């Protein structure tokens, strides 16, 4: 860890510390709304980071990450609502369940040589299959949804994630920061280099003695477990869960846009992407409201056009370009 830190340029260190302190101090000046947007940004930075580990480093395109968000959310919420088990404990169960599902998807895909677009479809199919299953299970509330009861007496129990906006902001900040540290460590680890080798040329990697199957499986497991933690956050932040919402393919897409726009396979890409896209979306809501346009799709249309423009003009994402401007070339391996 310390070695990693020493490896950074002084300017990069100053920027990271400055940015982090700024975020730590943000609640002093930000109002509730700004804080909620920042929370959303940090949440997307975290889950985007999780997805990026699998796609950006190991090169496995998953379009079904909503599966792991949903599983994490449901497992922790069910443990809390039905059995009174707090999220500090439930998060481990959530990780375990999501990793088990990730293992099944990964095994099916990698064992049977399902690659590229086909693997992506496999992940979509797994997520959609689970969505419909949850829609029809009465134990989880079915399509009617699962609701966390509002218990005023529990407010302030931060270890049970019961609290206000400020609590969730700092939890999201901790998650996002933890995600960055984890990604930075993994990307410089033996496993991280194995992922890169498999991403670039699997045959070559295998001929060097890398167990490609094992490398890809660990990528799925780490990514799914990490995403499930995001799911636990999601459940306790929003207090209601609908299979049609959490498992929806739109959630999967939303989750991966940040890292793609920010820069795949870079540590700061998912963070930058989240900081660009989420305020853009929120700003568009505010703008259309200000202009008095009462069209529910207007914001999303512009959002879609922005995406097309970004992928057309900056296919490698914003971060590598931004890093060059700031003079901090991240060693993109």
């Amino acid at each position, binding site marked *: 860890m310390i070695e990693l830190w020493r490896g950074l340029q002084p300017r990069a260190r100053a920027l990271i510390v400055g940015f982090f302190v700024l975020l730590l101090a943000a609640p002093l000046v930000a109002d509730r709304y700004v804080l909620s947007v920042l929370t959303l940004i940090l949440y997307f930075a975290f889950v985007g980071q999780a997805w990026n580990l699998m*796609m950006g480093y190991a090169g496995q*395109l998953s*379009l079904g990450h909503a599966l792991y968000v949903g599983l994490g959310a449901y497992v922790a919420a069910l443990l809390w609502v039905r059995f009174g088990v707090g999220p500090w404990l439930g998060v481990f169960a959530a990780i375990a369940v999501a990793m088990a599902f990730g293992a099944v998807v990964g095994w*099916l895909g990698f064992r*049977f*040589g*399902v690659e*590229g*677009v*086909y693997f*992506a*479809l*496999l992940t*979509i*199919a*797994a997520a*959609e*299959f689970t969505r*419909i*299953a949850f*829609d*029809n299970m009465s134990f989880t509330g079915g*399509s009617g949804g699962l609701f966390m009861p509002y218990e005023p007496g529990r407010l302030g129990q931060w270890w049970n994630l019961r609290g206000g906006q400020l609590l969730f902001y700092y939890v999201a900040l901790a998650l996002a920061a933890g995600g960055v540290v984890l990604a930075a460590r993994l990307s410089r680890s033996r496993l991280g280099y194995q992922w890169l080798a498999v991403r670039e040329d699997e045959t070559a990697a295998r001929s060097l003695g890398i167990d490609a199957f094992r490398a890809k499986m660990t990528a799925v497991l780490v990514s799914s477990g990490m995403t499930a933690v995001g799911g636990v956050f999601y459940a306790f932040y929003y207090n209601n869960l609908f299979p049609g919402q959490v498992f929806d*393919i*739109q959630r999967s*897409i939303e989750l991966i*846009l940040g890292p*793609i726009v920010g820069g*795949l396979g870079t540590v700061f890409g998912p963070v930058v992407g989240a900081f660009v896209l989420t305020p853009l979306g929120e700003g568009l809501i505010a703008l259309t409201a200000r202009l008095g346009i009462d*069209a*529910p*799709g*207007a*914001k*999303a*249309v512009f*959002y*879609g*056009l*922005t*995406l*097309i423009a970004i*992928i*057309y003009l900056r*296919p490698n994402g914003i971060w590598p370009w931004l890093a060059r401007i700031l003079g901090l070339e991240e060693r993109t391996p």
Partner: protein
Amino acid sequence: MTWSIYLGVVVQGVLTGLVYGLMALGLSVIFGVVRVVNFAHGEFAVVAMYAAFLLFRSLGLDPLIAFLPIAAAFFVVGFALQATLINAFVGRSEHEQFILLVGVAIVILNGLLMLFGPDAQPANLPYAFDSYAIGPLFIDKVRIYSAVAALAIAAVLFAFFRYTAIGTAIRACADNLTGAAVVGLNVKRLYAVTFGIGLACVGAAGALMVTIADAAPNLGPAYTLLAFIIVIVGGLGSMAGALVGGVLIGVSEALAGFIIQPSMKSMFSFALLIAVLVLRPQGLLGRRA
């Protein structure tokens, strides 16, 4: 007596499946030749549904006739889209193509939402509830008509790829891109024609779909997934495979909706997709690459 009920369900599923198959055929042609994943496929189908719906409401034009001009218009749109936007992405990595077309899909989906609102719009054809009695079976008229139309379009397309010079040239691009370029084929233009044909298929299928289902924006992503399932199950690049896959999915949806629960019908399609991906990744009629 019960067997005839099941048989009726199966026949309805086959007929609906043929229209699904036509939609998937468009995806298969685009993916098989241009090698671009059209993630906006279902959204285009819904645009065609709304076009057919509007033509029927305003001009009284029957969707079974309107599918022709709609398919022609979609060809132009597809040609233009490939020529301007997508050609730049040919050969680029999958996730870049994916995000481009997701952007297109988001724009279409929400454009429809702005124009028509989220509610389903029934076309209310005068003969929507007519049916033919064949022996003990009662088959919806609209399903028979649209299935016949879908088959006819597929036959025309098959003849086009088999017997015309431009169809042969497109197949050459799919088989051996370098070879096609070496012998002087204008690959970019042929790609644009192919994308146009793919969209013409989905345009026609969407117009025919109006006779069976009510147009609603949120059908878009569902149809995109449906088209993908069919193409994978049937076998990528196999035109007959797309139709067979369509029929298979149509029947399995109809039976699952009838026997178990309508809300669970697509679960079986996804299970089938997973099984095919794992056990026979080239699809039922596809050849191993």
